[in-house]
């Protein structure tokens, strides 16, 4: 397969990743998760990440109740303070801590309220990717691991499809999805989500296959446990580790991808609910007069993404068998 070729490299890598994170023959006794948790607690990166995310989530939950102004209240224009058309956008002041945005709305309030939407986009799109990916990967993995001849067929079939996806440049894929569905919040989520499908599929499949080859599965099979049961109650649960790690990391990229889409004008156009990516994109025309309008959301995005990445990397380490010695 032409495009697939490229994908295959990626695929193999993901597979290996999955196997690595899944293959843990040693370390009985303490459960994987307890162990991992202990290691997490010892890892400063993990702690920083968790704190950042904690704040982020907290803000996105309670924030909207605390903000001084409505996020869509064009107060600055009503009071004639903001003339962005003429390059006038007042900066920080006593009662508008971060000043106004180009529509005369209180930047601070929008930033706070924006957290929720941003979190929503990140989480939902990741979940979309996770759900579809895990479904495909899970089926393929189960099929390949325990399915025998037909299983292998099913597996190859599914994986070819995934490889196709993997081969397309993600942003162009997203762009054309947006073109098909028209710009909207759902579009962003779907576009960003779909992009991460193959990754999840590959990972889960990889680690499930690794698990299926492990002795306890052999044991279970030899004890005559039904394949489906093994797949569900033994293999799957034990294969989730790398997927969960990946999910955390994907949350970061999802938020950034969403911002990129907004920049291309494919972001969520409904400005009633502010979202950092959109805020960043909307600020572009005003970089000249108030770069801050771009910097605030950008920094917010970077910090959040960093939080997810830190936590994700820490989890990966904590769960990596090669490190658990």
């Amino acid at each position, binding site marked *: *397969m*032409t*495009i*697939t*070729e*490229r994908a295959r*490299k*990626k695929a*193999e*890598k993901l597979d290996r990743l999955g196997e690595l994170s899944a293959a843990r023959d040693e370390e009985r006794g303490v459960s994987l998760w307890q162990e991992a948790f202990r290691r997490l607690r010892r890892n400063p990166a993990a702690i920083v990440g968790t704190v950042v995310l904690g704040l982020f989530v907290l803000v996105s939950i309670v924030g909207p109740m605390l903000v001084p102004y409505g996020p869509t209240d064009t107060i600055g224009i009503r009071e004639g303070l903001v003339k962005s058309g003429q390059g006038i956008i007042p900066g920080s002041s006593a009662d508008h801590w971060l000043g106004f945005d180009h529509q005369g709305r209180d930047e601070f309030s929008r930033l706070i309220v924006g957290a929720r939407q941003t979190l929503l986009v990140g989480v939902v799109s990741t979940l979309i990717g996770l759900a579809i990916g895990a479904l495909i990967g899970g089926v393929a993995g189960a099929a390949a691991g325990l399915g025998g001849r037909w299983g292998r067929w099913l597996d190859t079939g599914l994986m070819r499809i995934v490889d196709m996806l993997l*081969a397309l*440049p*993600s*942003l*162009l894929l997203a*762009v*054309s999805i947006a*073109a*098909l569905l*028209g710009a909207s919040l759902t579009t962003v989520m779907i576009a960003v989500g779909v992009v991460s499908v193959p990754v999840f599929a590959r990972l889960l499949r990889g680690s499930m296959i690794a698990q299926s080859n492990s002795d306890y599965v052999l044991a279970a099979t030899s004890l005559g446990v039904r394949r489906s049961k093994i797949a569900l109650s033994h293999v799957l649960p034990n294969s989730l580790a790398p997927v969960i790690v990946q999910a955390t990391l994907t949350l*970061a*990229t999802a938020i*950034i991808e969403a*911002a*990129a889409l907004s*920049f*291309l004008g494919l972001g969520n156009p409904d400005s009633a609910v502010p979202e950092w990516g959109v805020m*960043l994109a909307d600020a*572009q025309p005003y*970089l000249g007069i108030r*770069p801050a309008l*771009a910097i605030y959301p*950008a920094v917010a*995005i*970077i910090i959040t*993404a*960093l939080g997810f*990445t*830190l936590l994700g*990397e820490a989890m990966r380490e904590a769960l990596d068998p*090669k490190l658990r010695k």
Partner: protein
Amino acid sequence: MFRFIVRRLLQLIPALFGLSILLFIWLHRLPGGPETAILGERGTPEMRAAIRQNLGLDEPILVQYGRFMKRMLRLDLGASIATKREVTTEFLQRFPGTVELAATAIIIAIAIGIPLGYLAARRRGRLLDHVSVAGSLIGVCIPVFFLAYVLKAIFAENLHLFPSSGRQDPTIEATRITNFFVLDGLMTREWDAAADALWHLVLPGLALASIPLAIIVRITRASVLEVLGEDFVRTAEAKGLTERVVRQRHVLRNAMLPVATTIGLLTGGLLSGAVLTETVFAFSGIGAFIADSISQRDYPVLMGFIMIIAVLFVLVNLLVDLSYSLIDPRVRVR
């Protein structure tokens, strides 16, 4: 080996066929058509109808696909609806830009990423390590287009060190042969042209390199650390080999395997990044052009470009696979 190559190339044919069908249907199912894009505000239903007719878009999709296939078989990609130029011409004029950009990005990423990751691994736990790890973490978290603007604001607008847009200073009269500006400059001995083209590549290259760089640093670091713990390194030490030999022949050589794979993968992702970078730096390449073509529903361009790119991918991956079997004897070409 030879049979391997041949088989790969044969696989190409059905694949391209399948791809073309899927793509053709997908594109023509997108709402709206080129006619609206062409006419803009002044379009009337009649005009649109007329254009659709001229473009043969009113015919059933199968007929259209048939027409497309006929052309393809004659290796004729048709002409862009938007620019009325031959698709092949468009490609030859725009693709080199993207390649130059991507190449620069990858080179920067490798040239900085591998040494940095390696040093980080060797100095594990020391300042350099923490800095580079932190850097690489932040690197993947900065939206490319934002980074691009920042770079421009600093190095172009204020320091006037680098140009902020384009591939070459238009006041330079450069001969175009391959449209790889640097290459052309060297071939025609127009040194200033080549230098200027390079100079224009720096900022967009950096912007596009940010993510690959971050990833390469991390992969290199991780895999060097892993290899350092391998038994065969201990064996090498036990042989009493000089540190240099151990590092280069045994550690680096093995550590590079996963890095190589990663680099192979990154090149694909670069195309996505290119869309943004090219827009922000007004850099003439296919990334932005394809994006435009999507919004203008420029079917011939989209079909043609993606077909060509697909073929190129196969060839590149063929090389990649072959090269793998060179770096890692365990990989066999089948």
